[in-house]
């Protein structure tokens, strides 16, 4: 390991980035531009919304009500709470999108003919799931109420909906931080193109005949792209704060540190994979197929994903974006710092360090 060689690679890589307009664009402005496009274009149908229920009544009717909610699978029961704090905790962890609070006099009030009221709390940081979930919840409650009363005069169950973390449930308001993980795939694309370009042009063959070590080469590539990745993420965050007026409630240094971890994870995986790819065209398709598309659908960025079970769980766990989406939403809307997002941060570190180490081990200094 020679710091001189490492520095030689780093400086060369910085020069490549700064002198190639396409690469420079990819690692500076393109994430912010994508962010604007996505923020305005988004409108998604909610698939499955996770419910947390605090049933304070524990009556036959309250159990019937819960059963009717989850009957068709559009809602799933993810948490049986016993107080506000347990629901709050589940929502902080991202286990539930909606919290339902059934008051202790639920059955009594209905049987007495006075309308009962249930309280609904929505995770305002995940607007897409929350907004869709609240609408559907109101429909379900109304259907349940109709079945209870033959005389459909006044609805006997009133839903009092309230959003946490994002009171107004303004869609662009909360969606933007969650989109950052997707748009921050651009540095991965840039590094994949840089590595395969070096192979395509034949410069790599010359490097093989030098004393460069795999570690120096890969780290020398990684560092400039992490640096520029932080620049592009900062532009995207600034855009979220200034243009979309999303408050950044968590500490800025923590968010930047976790951004570095995300870049390390996504770039580490890319570096490893690119060791097996010869052309820029293939590299681009692989990055798109491996990161962009799954991150879009499986990370929970756009669709609420059941990450607790099923085959989606594994894929979702391996995607750096799945962890980073919790980080950006947590940092922006839930005022979370790196201490509260330690699990996600550790996952990102592992997702980065394992392929990076494998990349060094499988690095072949041969044509």
């Amino acid at each position: 390991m020679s710091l001189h060689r490492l520095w030689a690679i780093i400086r060369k890589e910085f020069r490549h980035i700064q002198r190639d307009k396409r690469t420079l664009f990819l690692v500076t402005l393109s994430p912010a531009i994508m962010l604007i496009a996505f923020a305005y274009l988004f409108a998604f149908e909610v698939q499955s919304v996770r419910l947390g229920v605090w049933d304070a009544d524990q009556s036959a009717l309250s159990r019937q009500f819960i059963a009717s909610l989850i009957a068709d699978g559009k809602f799933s029961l993810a948490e049986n709470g016993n107080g506000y704090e347990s629901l709050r905790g589940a929502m902080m962890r991202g286990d539930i999108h909606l919290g339902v609070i059934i008051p202790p006099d639920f059955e009594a009030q209905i049987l007495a003919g006075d309308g009962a009221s249930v309280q609904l709390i929505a995770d305002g940081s995940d607007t897409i799931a929350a907004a869709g979930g609240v609408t559907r919840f109101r429909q379900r409650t109304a259907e349940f109420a109709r079945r209870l009363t033959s005389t459909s005069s006044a609805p006997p169950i009133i839903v009092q909906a309230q959003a946490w973390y994002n009171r107004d449930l303004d869609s662009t308001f909360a969606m933007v931080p969650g989109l950052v993980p997707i748009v921050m795939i651009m540095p991965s694309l840039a590094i994949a193109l840089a590595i395969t370009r070096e192979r395509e042009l034949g410069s790599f063959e010359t490097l093989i005949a030098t004393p460069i070590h795999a570690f120096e080469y890969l780290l020398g590539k990684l560092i400039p792209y992490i640096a520029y990745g932080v620049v592009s993420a900062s532009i995207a965050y600034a855009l979220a704060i200034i243009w979309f007026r999303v408050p950044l409630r968590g500490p800025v240094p923590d968010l930047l540190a976790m951004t570095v971890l995300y870049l390390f994870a996504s770039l580490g995986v890319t570096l490893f994979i690119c060791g097996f790819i010869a052309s820029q065209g293939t590299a681009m398709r692989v990055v798109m197929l491996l990161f962009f598309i799954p991150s879009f659908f499986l990370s929970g960025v756009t669709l609420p994903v059941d990450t607790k079970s099923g085959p989606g769980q594994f894929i979702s766990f391996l995607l750096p974006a799945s962890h980073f989406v919790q980080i950006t939403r947590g940092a922006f809307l839930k005022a979370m710092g790196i201490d509260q997002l330690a699990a996600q941060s550790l996952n990102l570190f592992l997702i980065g360090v394992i392929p990076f180490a494998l990349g060094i081990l499988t690095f072949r200094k041969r044509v």
Partner: protein
Amino acid sequence: MTGQITATQLSKTFRKNQAVRGVSFDIAPGEIYGLIGPDGAGKTTTIRMLAGVMDPTRGTARVNGLDTTRQAEQLRAHVGYMAQKFSLYGDLSVRENIEFYADIFGVRGKARAERIARLLKFARLDQFQDRDAGVLSGGMKKKLGLACAFIHRPRVLFLDEPTNGVDPISRREFWDILSDLHIEGVTIFISTAYLDEAERCSRVGLMYRGEIIREGTPIALRQLVQGDLLAIITPDLQIAENVAQKLPGIFEVQVYGDRLHVFVDAGATRAREIEIALVAAGATIKQIRPAAPHLQEAFISLISHL
């Protein structure tokens, strides 16, 4: 074998294609060894194996006493390698390219500045040091590649068709630089498709279909190519080919694009005879002149007489 570059039965097979079929070398320190052959003969694969950037399927090679497969990393400091494809960084300047390789090869301190300045001068690139490598002429690119490959002052240089596609003046200049290195005692292993370049080597190996079919000094090899070469430019290639083949004193007739290349026993007398015969057969002749045998032609001629 005690040479600086030695190889025993070096072979490389790609899937089913046997690119190199058991070649052996014993090259002494200070030699300029030319590996000559047509495209696809296996020259690049051979050089890659000797330079330690590709593992042989069978056989072994040693450079400076180090095994090119198992001791490849130790070998790097003693060997300079210039790949066939121009492989420097087009967006870095001439100086930045040389500096990059100086840093990678651990050339530091006072030696770094001195050596870079000397190499820039040596490669006649000192006036162009701030120019992007990508906008250099073909010849200058090759000289820059050579400078980068020599930054760590290796004892052995492997150069894979360094003059391919370069104009004749730049080629000569490149070879003048190689001669200077040769005088300094550097062992040079170079591949080329140009016969005239082979003449500047101390020894030449002719490679064809993965094998060294002839090896020796340029003078010894040239004597193997029989007769003179005539180039005939004619729109009636088919007729000309058929007629020329049947004339006396003709060794070989080859079609090269819009012209016919004819190996004859005596150029001056046969040229006249061919011209008469072709005109009699109804072919139009635009030009008929003696030509220097290109290696490819010499080769085909050699092989057909094997």
